[in-house]
């Protein structure tokens, strides 16, 4: 079930009405409804994979309980290993096995040894990387003693399967979300209203910008297609906005929907294209995944402590894992590597936390150095996105070489004036609202101003949206 589908437009109000009609009953009833609704939501794609989700949830529920009961550190470690192996093993089989089998065979082929690799050809279950990381964080936190195991199994199942964020995040930590399932939720008008605003903005980003960019990007990135420099740059530019609006649009809708049910999810994007350096970009892009890697991989590896070589190794590990998390393809590995290469000089020179606050704080416009920093950061991410989107490394390299041609100064045949206008509206709105939680947080405006804003965004969706059933890009990860 997609957020931008008619089915979801019916599903959401039905679940919402049922949910709040249970507000005077015991909390378990609401949680049970969330579990049932979430399983329907997930099973809408392919009910077969529901069993993986249920098994993963039950395994971590029991393992975490066993870890908490046990005082023997070795046994605790063994129990944690069971959870890690089962979860990462499932992820590995479904997502990475074929990639490594084929890469292994290819590397042997280079030295003249021919191996016929056994591939599985499994369909990747939707959202497996998201809910696997979510359940893992729960078990690790219990192992570390940062969290007590869930008392109520229904609350835990609801935490893992919570439908707004189940298939594409934000990847919620049990320390933030699980306690919310264990206390009574109160309906908060201000929170719900702001949730609706965030949903509206997320829809604008998804159906007006991301889905309008998609066909042009697909056209430009079509394997074998030959384009001039300006079109290739346009393809990278539009993909940058497609992936941002697709993914952050999903996060906005997920956070907004959660607020309608009385939950608060973590922020997943903080206007990343206004970043002044790559370190700031990574603090603002897919925050839930990056903080997951930071807390469960980077810091245990030693983080930014130790020798320069040690720190470089840790950064490389983090970015390569981040690349691989997105998919089993060398393009993602190189995308991760490029980001690591851009990040490492900042780390080694101690400038990786130079730009922590909001750009142009309290001002209308950035100063020249901030503006140049933003442009350079956006430009470098643009190049990295080419690897992320390309079918293979050869295509990415060909496209980047093609960008540096004299045809760079011609107007591209793929240029769409309306789409550029929509992207401009997005940039201006997000710039003005960059210090807020989301771009449509309008509490300070008078009622007429708020209504005018809602009507404007609705009309943009009404006239310029696309509803051709485009999936969200991050569903595949």
């Amino acid at each position, binding site marked *: 079930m997609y957020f931008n589908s*008619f089915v979801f437009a019916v599903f959401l109000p039905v679940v919402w009405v049922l949910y709040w009609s249970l507000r005077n009953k015991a909390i378990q009833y609401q949680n049970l409804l969330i579990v049932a609704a979430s399983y329907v939501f997930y099973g809408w794609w392919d009910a077969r994979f529901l069993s993986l989700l249920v098994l993963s949830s039950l395994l971590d529920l029991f393992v975490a309980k066993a870890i908490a009961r046990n005082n023997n550190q070795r046994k605790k470690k063994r129990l944690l290993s069971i959870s890690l192996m089962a979860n990462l093993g499932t992820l590995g089989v479904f997502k990475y096995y074929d990639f490594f089998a084929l890469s292994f065979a290819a590397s042997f082929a280079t030295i003249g040894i021919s191996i016929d690799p056994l591939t599985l050809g499994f369909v990747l279950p939707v959202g497996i990387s998201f809910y696997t990381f979510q359940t893992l964080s729960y078990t690790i936190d219990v192992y570390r003693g940062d969290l007590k195991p869930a008392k109520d199994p229904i609350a835990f199942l609801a935490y893992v399967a919570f439908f707004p964020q189940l298939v594409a995040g934000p990847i919620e930590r049990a320390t933030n979300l699980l306690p919310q399932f264990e206390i009574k939720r109160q309906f908060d*008008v201000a929170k719900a*209203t702001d949730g609706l605003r965030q949903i509206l903005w997320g829809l604008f980003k998804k*159906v007006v910008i991301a889905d309008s960019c998609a066909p042009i990007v697909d056209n430009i990135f079509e394997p074998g297609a030959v384009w001039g420099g300006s079109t290739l740059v346009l393809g990278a530019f539009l993909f940058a906005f497609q992936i941002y609006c697709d993914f952050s649009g999903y996060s906005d809708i997920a956070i907004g929907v959660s607020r309608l049910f009385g939950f608060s999810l973590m922020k997943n994007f903080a206007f990343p294209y206004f970043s002044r350096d790559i370190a700031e970009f990574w603090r603002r892009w897919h925050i839930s995944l990056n903080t997951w890697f930071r807390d469960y991989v980077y810091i245990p590896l030693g983080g930014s402590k130790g020798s320069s070589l040690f720190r470089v190794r840790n950064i490389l590990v983090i970015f390569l894992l981040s690349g691989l998390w997105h998919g089993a393809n060398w393009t993602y590995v190189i995308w991760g590597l490029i980001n690591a290469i851009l990040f490492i000089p900042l780390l080694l020179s101690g400038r990786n936390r130079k730009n922590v606050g909001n750009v142009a704080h309290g001002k209308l416009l950035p100063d020249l150095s901030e503006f140049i920093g933003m442009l350079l950061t956006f430009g470098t991410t643009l190049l990295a996105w080419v690897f992320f989107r390309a079918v293979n490394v050869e295509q990415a390299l060909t496209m980047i070489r093609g960008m540096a041609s004299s045809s760079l100064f011609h107007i591209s045949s793929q240029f769409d004036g309306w789409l550029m206008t929509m992207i401009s509206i997005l940039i201006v709105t997000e710039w003005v609202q960059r210090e807020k939680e989301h771009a449509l947080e309008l509490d300070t405006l008078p009622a007429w101003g708020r209504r005018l804003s809602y009507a404007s965004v*609705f009309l943009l969706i*009404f006239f*310029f*949206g696309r*509803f051709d059933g485009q999936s969200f890009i991050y569903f595949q990860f």
Partner: protein
Amino acid sequence: MKNFIIKTLIALTIVGSCHAIAALFANGATDPFYLRFTRGPYSSMVLGSSRAAQGVIPTVLDKVLSSDLYDGELFNFSFTRDNSPYGPAYLGAIVKKLDKNSTNGLYILAVDPWVLSMPIGITDFPENDMQPGNMSNVTSNPNLEYLIRNYNYAWGSLIGGPFSTKDTVQFLHDDGWLEINVPMDSISMALRFSRKLKEYEDLATKEMEYSIERVLYLEKTINYLKPYGKVVLVRIPMDAGIRSIEDQFRPDFSAEMDELAKKHNVLYVDDTDNNEKYDYTDGNHLAATSAPLYSGWLANYIKRSSDPN
């Protein structure tokens, strides 16, 4: 909470009303299919793929064939090779579109090897999830089900003006005929012809295989329609290049169809040997200028064949 619900309902009512008003503007320029789901039921129909959709003009046949040959107006309920090959989905849609009171209708079933083929290795009928297979209502105007399921753009674009996504290349007429207006200069035509040839070469050599199951569904369709009137099988002409690919893909196709028509005691009309009489937009589809010519020829052929004298 009460206030929140009331305000949300007001907002949703405004949103719903805007969409309902926009739906009233949907017409033949909306997309190549929409209008076909807003008319009927019909007691006489043209059925098949895009060759029939673009090549057979019902109003031309209506003019030529006297009203005593069949009841009511003929309607073109053809779609594309992908959407409406003979199979359970198309037959289901035909059943919904048919006026069940009819006893003297005319049903022109266009056939070619592609509407009787399946993608290699696929066992389920892939058209089940496409229109008309995914439609439960094929006769309401406006057809909200169609717009919700199958219209890919914001409904505001139905209103027209600068936000319109309606294209000027194709227009679906009230009788279901899809008129295509593309540049017919030699350069544009050569480009379209070469692309279409490549597409059909791939279909014939890599992608499709002839399906006995689809032939059985064609027979089921004939048998279903026969009690409601006269059934005619038609092979619509195509350019020599495409014809040659079809002949390689299914060498005895015309003879097979002739035999099938005889088996079911229906008329089979094949004018593919005279394909040079007509112009084509891409080699596969009759040009808008040739569609009236072919439709007139077909009408006269059916008339002559139906005349006992």
